[in-house]
């Protein structure tokens, strides 16, 4: 693998950038792999990377029906935080956070992970109770965070309207300094390049159209380019997980919904942290390019159309103008939608299935991007060993039968 560095940039500039190598190969699929990962988004690529890097399993294919990182990885609002309420979720996201903190160096690819801090605002007394509960839990779990009062919020984020005269005044916030944003595309590309360098085959424009299962054991997948064998298959396909599950005769507790986001036109730096409000229903950060990156809520209906309804965008911008009145004259440039696969308890599924060798990593809802390295890391472990990584274990599908849900709704709300 060609190492990247500032020195390298200068060297390549002298040769007119003509000698840069491909970031990944475009291989012809082999007949058989040790492990097939279905889905070449951030989570799938991270899984492949860690399988190769930490478990020495390099005879791996990632099968992607479109282009790498083209699903939710390309469509999210890039927020990274680990201040989840329940121990199980907090452990998973904090595992991811620790990997984020060294990811650029590990991958030799600058994913532009910017730890500029995340504010979760409270606007009602119950919001503040929930914030205190969550921050206390975070602290005792070893996750950074503090509860701020209105004045402290104002100091961290002067552009936010903290006056008492708004419809829902800011009463305080939780503050996770280690939270922030990352460059979403770079995450997929960095993992792809890393995985490829370790021997993983990244197979794009190839769709899985069936699963071959005999005697309850997965034998491989049927694809638009023929059958590819593997006795371990991990499905990491976000919104399309349900479609894959059906191929294996499995039903999942998932619903795929449109989740919309939008960006403003680029403006000069004005917002230096990530601000999220469940109550007013808006969240916002500013990208390095200057765009205000704004997330909307989930549309309530099922949808695979990568678009949602206009009122959702309207409500979101009403919330943003309410929170940041000086953004009123800034223009919205573009909106888009992703397909989020949501679980009833707003937590993911990282699980074996009744089919031996077939595993699913899905149901991330709005929380997928921030978990990318952690999800890939524990899922790779799970695929390598054939049973759940301790951090992944609570996220088994069985929880929906036993009732042991990890209900992040109360604390997560719109949860991005």
């Amino acid at each position: 693998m060609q190492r990247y560095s500032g020195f390298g940039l200068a060297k390549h500039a002298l040769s007119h950038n003509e000698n840069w190598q491909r970031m990944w190969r475009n291989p012809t699929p082999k007949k058989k792999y040790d492990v097939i990962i279905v889905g070449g988004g951030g989570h799938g690529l991270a899984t492949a990377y860690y399988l190769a890097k930490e478990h020495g399993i390099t005879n791996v294919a990632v099968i992607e029906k479109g282009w790498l990182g083209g699903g939710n990885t390309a469509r999210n609002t890039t927020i990274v935080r680990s201040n989840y309420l329940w121990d199980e979720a907090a452990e998973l996201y904090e595992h991811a956070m620790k990997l984020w903190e060294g990811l650029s160096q590990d991958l030799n690819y600058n994913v532009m992970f910017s730890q500029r801090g995340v504010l979760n605002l409270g606007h009602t007394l119950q919001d503040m109770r929930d914030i205190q509960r969550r921050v206390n839990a975070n602290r005792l779990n070893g996750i950074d965070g503090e509860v701020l009062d209105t004045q402290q919020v104002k100091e961290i984020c002067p552009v936010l309207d903290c006056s008492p005269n708004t419809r829902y005044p800011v009463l305080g916030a939780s503050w996770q300094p280690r939270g922030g944003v990352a460059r979403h595309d770079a995450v997929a590309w960095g993992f792809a390049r890393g995985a490829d360098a370790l021997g993983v085959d990244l197979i794009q424009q190839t769709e899985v159209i069936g699963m071959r299962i005999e005697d309850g054991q997965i034998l491989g997948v049927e694809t638009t380019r023929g059958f590819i064998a593997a006795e371990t298959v991990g499905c990491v396909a976000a919104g399309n997980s349900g479609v894959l599950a059906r191929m294996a005769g499995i039903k999942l507790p998932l619903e795929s919904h449109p989740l919309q986001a939008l960006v403003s036109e680029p403006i000069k730096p004005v917002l230096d942290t990530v601000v999220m409000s469940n109550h007013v229903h808006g969240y916002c950060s500013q990208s390095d390019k200057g765009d205000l990156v704004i997330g909307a809520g989930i549309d309530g209906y099922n949808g695979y159309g990568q678009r949602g309804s206009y009122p959702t965008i309207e409500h979101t911008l009403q919330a943003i103008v309410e929170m940041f009145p000086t953004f009123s004259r800034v223009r919205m440039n573009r909106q888009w939608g992703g397909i989020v696969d949501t679980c009833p308890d707003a937590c993911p599924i990282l699980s074996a299935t009744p089919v031996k060798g077939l595993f699913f990593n899905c149901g991330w809802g709005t929380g997928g991007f921030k978990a990318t390295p952690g999800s890939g890391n524990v899922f790779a472990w799970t695929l390598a060993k054939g049973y759940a990584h301790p951090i992944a274990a609570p996220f088994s599908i069985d929880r929906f039968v036993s009732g042991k849900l990890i209900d992040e709704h109360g604390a997560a709300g719109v949860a991005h």
Partner: protein
Amino acid sequence: MLHIYCPYCGEHREESEFRPKGQAHILRPKDPDNCSDEVWADYLFFRDNPRGLHHEMWLHATGCRKYFNVTRDTVSYEILETYKMGEQPKITAQSRAAGGEK
């Protein structure tokens, strides 16, 4: 933004008058006390989530307050029919595959 025909009001109304209420035709087990945990979980949590034709329930929340069913394509978002609670869809994945009603 969807434009939804309320079968009770007999008119198309804006989506903002409605609330989506999830998959239609979910049956509560007849004898809950004697069904397995799996059957109960299936009823509570497990959904079809199809990519394509879907039967879902909507509430005309700021209109007549009636629940009704919608057959909608989850990719194109086209609504193929709406029908009252208690009725069965005329258009299904099977009928569509069989080249029946479009």
